[in-house]
C-alpha cells in the first residue's frame, strides 16, 4: 500500500458521489448524498454571496479601487496603503474604534448577566407571566435595524442632551452621582465603581440589547426537565443550591451562544459609529479600498474578541461538566 497518496483519503470520501464503485450503492453513501442535497442551497449561497465577496473585499483592501461606469471597477495594487489611511490618516476611525470596543466589552458582560437574571425570573410561575414575556419581547423589536439611534441621530438632540446634563450637574440631587462620591470616599477602587456606574447609567441600553438573549436563555431553562429539581428537592437541596448545581450548568452551554451573539450584535448595530463611518466612506466618498480595509480591521477585532471570550467560556463551562 505504499503507492497511496495523501489525497487518497479525500478521494475515498468523495467516491460516494461518483457512481460505478462499490461504495456508491451502500446505505451510508445514499444518506450522505441526501444530506448533501439538503445543504446544497447553503453551499451555493455561501460560495457565491459570502466566500466570493469576502475574498474580493480582502483583495480590495490592498488595492486602490476605482469605479468605471458600465464596466465594473479597476484595481491597482497599493500594498498596505489603505490600512495606513484607515488607521493613521482618517481622523475619526481610530477614536471611534477604541470607544466602541471599550464600551462593548463592558456591555457584553452586563447584557449576559441581565438577560440571564431576567430569563430565570420569567421562567418562574407567577401571575401575568404572558404579559411580562410580551413586554420583554419589545426590546427585540426596538433594538433592531433602523430603530436604535433614530432619535439620537441629529446634532440638535445631542446638543439638547448635553444641555440637560449640564443642568443636572449644576443643581438638584443626582442620586447616582452622590452615591458614586460616597463610595469613592470610602476608599474602594475608583475604577471598578466607574465601570459599575456606567453600567447602571446605561441599564436601559443593556435591557434593550438583551431581547434575543433572554429568549435563548428562556428556551434553555425550559429544556431542563422538572424531575431534576424534584430529585434535588427530595435529596434536601435548597433552592440556592439547585440553582448553582442544576440551572447554571444546564444553561451554561447557551452562555457561549449568547456571548458570541451579543458581541456580534453590538458590532453590527446601526447606531454604531464605526458602521456609520464605513457606510459613509463606501457610498459617499466612494473609497472602496479604504472602506474594505476599515471593515477588515473591524472584523479582525470582532473575531479576536469572540475568540478570547469563547476560550474563557468554554474553559469555565468545562469545569462544570
Amino acid at each position: 500500500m505504499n503507492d497511496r497518496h495523501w489525497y487518497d483519503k479525500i478521494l475515498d470520501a468523495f467516491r460516494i458521489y461518483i457512481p460505478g464503485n462499490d461504495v456508491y450503492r451502500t446505505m451510508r453513501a445514499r444518506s450522505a448524498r441526501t444530506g448533501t442535497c439538503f445543504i446544497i442551497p447553503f453551499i451555493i449561497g455561501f460560495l457565491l454571496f459570502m466566500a466570493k465577496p469576502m475574498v474580493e473585499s480582502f483583495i480590495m483592501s490592498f488595492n486602490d479601487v476605482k469605479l468605471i461606469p458600465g464596466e465594473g471597477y479597476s484595481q491597482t495594487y497599493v500594498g498596505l496603503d489603505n490600512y495606513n489611511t484607515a488607521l493613521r490618516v482618517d481622523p475619526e476611525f481610530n477614536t471611534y474604534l477604541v470607544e466602541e470596543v471599550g464600551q462593548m466589552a463592558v456591555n457584553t458582560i452586563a447584557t449576559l448577566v441581565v438577560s440571564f437574571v431576567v430569563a430565570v425570573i420569567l421562567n418562574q410561575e407567577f401571575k401575568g407571566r404572558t404579559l411580562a414575556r410580551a413586554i420583554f419581547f419589545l426590546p427585540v423589536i426596538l433594538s433592531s435595524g433602523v430603530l436604535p439611534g433614530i432619535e439620537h441621530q441629529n446634532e440638535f438632540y445631542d446638543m439638547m442632551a448635553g444641555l440637560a446634563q449640564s443642568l443636572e450637574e449644576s443643581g438638584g440631587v443626582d442620586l447616582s452621582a452622590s452615591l458614586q462620591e460616597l463610595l469613592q470616599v470610602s476608599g474602594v477602587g475608583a475604577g471598578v465603581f466607574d465601570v459599575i456606574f456606567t453600567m447602571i447609567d446605561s441599564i436601559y441600553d443593556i435591557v434593550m440589547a438583551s431581547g434575543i438573549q433572554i429568549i435563548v436563555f428562556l428556551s434553555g431553562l425550559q429544556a431542563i426537565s422538572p424531575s431534576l429539581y424534584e430529585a434535588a428537592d427530595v435529596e434536601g437541596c435548597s433552592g440556592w443550591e439547585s440553582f448553582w448545581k442544576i440551572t447554571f450548568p444546564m444553561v451554561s452551554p447557551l452562555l457561549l451562544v449568547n456571548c458570541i451573539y451579543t458581541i456580534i450584535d453590538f458590532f453590527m448595530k446601526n447606531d454604531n459609529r464605526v458602521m456609520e463611518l464605513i457606510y459613509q466612506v463606501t457610498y459617499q466618498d466612494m473609497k472602496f479600498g479604504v472602506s474594505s480595509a476599515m471593515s477588515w480591521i473591524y472584523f479582525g477585532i470582532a473575531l479576536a474578541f469572540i475568540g478570547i471570550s469563547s476560550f474563557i467560556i468554554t474553559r469555565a463551562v468545562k469545569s462544570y461538566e
Partner: protein
Amino acid sequence: MSKSKTVFIGNNKSFWDRNRRSEGYLLKRQMKKTAGSVIRALLLIGLCFMIIQPMLMRFSVGFMVEKDLYDTTIVLVPREVTLENYQHVFNMTDFPNSMLNTLWISLLVSVLQVVSCTIVAYGFARYEFPLKKLWFACVIMLIVVPPTTIQTSLYMNFANFDLFGIVRLFNGGKPINLRTSILPYLLMSITCMGLKNGLYIFMLRQYFAGVPKSLEEAAYIDGCGTVHTFTKIMLPDAMPTIASCFLFGFVWQWTDLFYSRNFLQAKYSVYSIQLSSITSRMGRYFSQDASKAVVVPVGRQQQLISIGVLICCIPLIILYCFTQKTFVKSLTMTGSKE
C-alpha cells in the same frame, strides 16, 4: 408525640396551628416565598416600566400640538388632542405605500429564509457527509462575519452581476445591473445568506438534533421516503421553532436598514429607509416654498420621529401577539423532549 395521637396536618387547621406543629418551618418557608415574590415583582415591574415608558411617552407626545411640547406643566396628558401629527408623518413616510412594500417584502423574504434554513438545518442535524464539519464552520462564520465586511464587494457584484461569465454570454458581453431589483436579495434569501440566517440554521439544527432518532427510523420502516419523513414527521413537530425563526426574520427584515439600503432603496420605498431619513426631509416638507427648507424645532422633530417609531412597532407587536401562542409552545415543547 406518641403514635396513637398522630394528627395529620390538614387544611382544616389554622395556619398558626400548622406552623406550631412544624416548629416554625412553615412560617419561615412562607416568608421566604413572599419575600421572593415581592423582590421578583419589584424587579419585573421596574424593568417592564423602563421598557414601556418610552413607548407610552411616544404615544402621548404624538397627540400633542406643538405648543404643548414646550409647556412644562404638561407631562403625559396632552391639553388638546390632535391627529395632525400623524397626518404629517404619513405624508412624509409615503405611508400606505411604503408600509405595504415593507409588508410584502418582509413576508416574502422571511418565508424564503425560514424555508431554506429549515431544509439546511435538517441536513446538518441528521446526515453524515464529507466535509460536514467544514460546512458547519461556514455556518458559524456566517453568524460571525458582519455584513459590513462584504458590503463593498456585494455592491460591486450585483451592480455588475455575472454568474461565472454565463450572464455575459447571453447578454451581449455585458454584465447586468441587478442592484435596482429585488432579485439579488431573494437569491440571497433562498440560499440562506440573508440577515442573520446563520443564527436560524444554528437554532433549527439544535432543535432537530434533539428529536429522538427512533421517530424517523419508525417512519422509514413504515415505508416513508426521505422527503415524506421530513415533511410529515419532522416538520409538524418543529413548527413552533420554525415560527419563532419566522418571527425573528420578519421583525429584523421589517426594521432592516442594511440590506434595504443596499438592494431595495433604488426601486421600492421601504418604511425603514423612509424613517431613517425623516429628519433630513422634515425641513423641506414644512416649508411653504418647495425649493427652500425651514429649520424644524428639535422638539417637533423628536415628536414626529416618535410617531414614526410607534407606527413601525405597532404591526410587529400585533404579529407577536398572534404568534405568541406557538412561540411559547415552542419554548415549552423543547422541555418535553428528551
